[in-house]
């Protein structure tokens, strides 16, 4: 039995025996993966880690703060190109810079959220994504023209280790953030704007903060993706990226950190499984969203949560 005994226990990171065991297993797996001698899986692991950071950001905005945004492709592109242009700086600074430029764009894109809700906000942010894409496709000084931009690419192994470590840092920071006053403010705004305001939560600040944090994550995702590819061209960031992110947060689990990682793994690995049947992937994406909405609205994370509760109370139930 490992029921939470005092409320202070609730404040601990990863409370509960099963959770801690799963966490340890995930860490062990990430460390072991490169030693399996399968370069293809190192590539996939790296992609999952990179993608998971962006999905986590999108989940903060959609799952936690309840702001439906379709601007992800734009933030991805901004992060990637900012990183490419900042390559003269030390790596970490360039990465931070890419995130911050994207966060700034996020604040600007967030302004419509102060007036618009649901589908209207989605359309406004989608417009931004398309505009960012057009800008990059048509301004050679930004995009490097038809040649694109070259980005320095480290060895596969060092990419894997840095990206997995970064995912760890982001996952930890996100978990902390959402269990703090700031995360509660996001969720309060999602659940009832008027009640949140009446409790002293500033709507403007909270929504813009959600956009800023979320696009910071997505900007970092874009930067790491640029580094992973070693080369950038505008066609990389089209609107289908938005769909992929939505599949990831829905299938992985809305408002869940581990769900964001599951969702990223889902969208990265599914095309691998389909192999020759690549055309079927979008169809399967659509079907999986439907299946989640019908059978387990909490997504993979929700299913895991139920399993974990069952295990933690076993054999008492």
């Amino acid at each position: 039995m490992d029921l939470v005994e005092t409320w202070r226990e609730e404040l601990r990171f990863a409370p509960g025996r099963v959770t801690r065991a799963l966490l340890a297993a995930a860490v062990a797996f990430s460390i072991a993966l490169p030693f399996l001698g399968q370069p293809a899986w190192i590539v996939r692991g790296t992609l999952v880690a990179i993608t998971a950071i962006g999905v986590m950001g999108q989940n903060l905005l959609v799952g936690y703060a309840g702001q439906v945004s379709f601007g992800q492709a734009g933030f991805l592109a901004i992060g990637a190109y900012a990183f490419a242009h900042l390559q003269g700086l030390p790596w970490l600074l360039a990465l931070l810079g890419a995130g911050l430029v994207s966060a700034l764009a996020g604040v600007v894109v967030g302004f419509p959220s102060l007036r618009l809700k649901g589908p209207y906000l989605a359309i406004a942010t989608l417009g931004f994504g398309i505009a960012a894409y057009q800008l990059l496709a048509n301004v050679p000084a930004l995009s490097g023209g038809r040649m694109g931009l070259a980005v320095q690419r480290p060895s596969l192994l060092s990419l894997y280790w840095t990206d997995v470590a970064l995912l760890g840092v982001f996952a930890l920071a996100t978990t902390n953030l959402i269990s703090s006053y700031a995360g509660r403010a996001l969720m309060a705004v999602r659940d009832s704007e008027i009640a949140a305001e009446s409790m002293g939560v500033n709507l403007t600040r909270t929504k813009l903060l959600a956009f800023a944090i979320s696009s910071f994550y997505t900007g970092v995702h874009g930067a790491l993706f640029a580094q992973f590819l070693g080369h950038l061209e505008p066609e990389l960031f089209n609107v289908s990226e938005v769909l992929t992110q939505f599949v990831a947060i829905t299938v992985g689990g809305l408002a869940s950190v581990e769900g964001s990682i599951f969702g990223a793994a889902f969208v990265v690995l599914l095309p691998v499984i389909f192999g020759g049947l690549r055309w079927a992937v979008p169809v399967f994406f659509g079907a999986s969203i439907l299946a989640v909405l019908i059978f387990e609205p909490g997504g993979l994370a929700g299913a895991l949560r139920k399993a974990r509760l069952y295990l933690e109370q076993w054999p008492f139930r």
Partner: protein
Amino acid sequence: MSLSFGGIRALRGVSLAVREGETLAVIGPNGSGKTSLFNCISGAYQPGAGDISFDGASLLRLSPDRVARRGIARTFQNLRLFLGMPVMENLLVGRHLHFRRNLLSAALRLRREEIRHRDRCEEIIEFLDLEPYRKLRAGDCPYGVQKRVELGRALALEPRLLLLDEPASGLTGEEKEEVAYWLHEVRGRFGVTLVFVEHDLRFASRLAARMIALDRGEKIAEGTPEEVQRRPEVERAYLGDAA
């Protein structure tokens, strides 16, 4: 103060004063403007004319979060809980404005402040008998419990003025008794000034030493519960409502 929605005049020159530490009941039939009055005070609506002052400063044109920061908390007639969050977290949002906001320490999990605020919420949980529900999502709690959570959330803010919109509506007789008891305790323990809307005249007169009655956006009576209930306008308004 006055408030209109298009052609509907929800409040017509209603004027009232609340003294520090007192309990005031606002009564009146459905649609008489009681909720609108609360919405004006709490900043959800802006009155078209008039003034609202609290502690010597005007509340006009303040957004609801700024009003909350002045020390005014409210509940809603049709519950506005954070349904996806556990009960405890609902209360913690009530303490939002007491947090020294610092994103970096939040991301680094520096928890000294958090623990202090949780202690306060813990007291409220105990006070309102919410212990069995603390980890349950607010949306999964029964109605009576949800009403209590909303009261607790407002108390967590440590307001100086508490506005309760129909705190006993939809509750069973027994639950109403409990609410009356808690409100009585709240005044003693938290020393808060209380203004509440209530349909049930008997319930209202048990708690409040003073009442105002609204009808169709106008104040039709004010005074002790006995005085107000004896006024023919009040009787007419209530009979009209029943008919």
